[in-house]
């Protein structure tokens, strides 16, 4: 039987917390952005689209370093946030959540955008003729019909966030109890003599979480199809 030590538990719980916070904060932003990309035409749209996808194609180390430059203690945004609002990202678990959120963002936005695009705009027009303002059309027609896609995006984003390594370790380092997630714990364990067994336990845990997330996403995708057919 697998025996998980308290240190490992700390890393697992921290990973879950970091990934949950990252997903919950990124979701409303992701929905707004997905709607913008799916339904509006505006100047700079392709630039915004590329920007959202950037963390997917950049080396994670680069993203992490850019976050450090921007949100670090002496960074442009980070310094201001620390001085005015007292929010600090550098070397804190909140910074890990920020890094994971940024890395997960493209994966979160994509299914939401696709499901919003799949909502028949004729239904939105019908809602408008029944007196619904554009915002209420979104809340009562577009969002409920796109909901399975939103949930799928959240699951994928969560799975990505929980496995994130490169950007997180670059931005907030690898501090046990504060920023040491499952991934960075495994990394440390592999480099320690006799760490193999512990590393393997954490590998099993992360495989279980990832598989569960993928099965969840698949289930939501199937629900989406059924919902759009109105049964």
């Amino acid at each position, binding site marked *: 039987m697998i025996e998980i030590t308290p240190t490992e538990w700390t890393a697992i719980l921290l990973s879950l917390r970091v990934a949950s916070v990252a997903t919950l904060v990124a979701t409303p932003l992701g929905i707004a952005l997905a709607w913008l990309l799916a339904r509006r035409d505006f100047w700079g749209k392709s630039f915004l689209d590329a920007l959202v996808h950037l963390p997917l194609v950049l080396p994670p180390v680069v993203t992490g370093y850019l976050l450090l430059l921007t949100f670090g203690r002496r960074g442009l945004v980070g310094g201001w946030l620390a001085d005015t609002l007292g929010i600090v990202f550098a070397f804190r678990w909140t910074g890990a959540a920020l890094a994971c959120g940024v890395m997960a963002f493209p994966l979160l936005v994509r299914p939401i955008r696709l499901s919003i695009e799949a909502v028949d705009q004729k239904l939105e027009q019908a809602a408008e003729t029944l007196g619904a303002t554009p915002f209420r059309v979104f809340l009562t027609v577009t969002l*409920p019909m796109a909901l399975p896609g939103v949930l799928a995006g959240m699951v994928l984003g969560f799975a990505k966030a929980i496995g994130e390594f490169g950007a997180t370790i670059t931005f907030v380092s690898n501090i046990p109890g504060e920023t040491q997630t499952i991934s960075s714990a495994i990394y440390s364990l592999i480099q320690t003599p006799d760490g193999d067994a512990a590393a393997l336990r954490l590998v099993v845990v992360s495989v279980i979480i990832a598989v569960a997330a993928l099965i969840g996403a698949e289930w939501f995708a199937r629900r989406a199809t059924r919902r*759009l057919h109105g049964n």
Partner: protein
Amino acid sequence: MLRVDIEKQLGEFSLSASFTSEGRVTGLFGASGAGKSSLINMIAGLLQPDRGTISIDGEILDDTKKGIHIPAWRRRIGYVFQDARLFPHLNVAQNLDYGRRMNGIADDPAQRRRVTDLLDIGHLLSRRPGKLSGGERQRVALGRALLSKPRLLLLDEPLGALDEGRRAEILPYLVRLRDEARIPMVYVSHDPAELRQLATQIVLLKNGRVTSFGGVKVLAG
């Protein structure tokens, strides 16, 4: 009274229509591609004219010179589409109630009862649109539009997607609606027989132009 005097360029197609109607049911007649749907979408506010005015009972809905365009959700114009467009994630009762909720109208069970009786849809209330026949769907769409308390009802070939038998099933409801609901209607169709039964005035549209206007007898010529 409905006044329309608009111009609209849609790709290669140019629409230029002008008419005034006081009829209870204004029939908009023309072949497919004559511009009927674009015209009715402009009355609904879903499409904006390039030039011109649209008004109901003296209230201006569109006036391009003055830069007025009242958005669809503030026009209180009901619209029954050819393809019903019921919300698939809501059941029939929730679909019927949608316009009332969006307009903040007080709940009126008596009115709801009247409309569901008129259209014979009372037994469908808990069903999802996916489980309705084409004719049932169209009746629910009609009820949904009526219950939003519109001052004008637009019907865009509401029987167009139905076969002969279903048409005969719906037509009597439309006649009852005309005689009982007292809401002026604009009825789009390419079927003269349908319009003879329903319309009190006809606007004949051909290639984006109004070619005739008058009583139902203009359909003969």
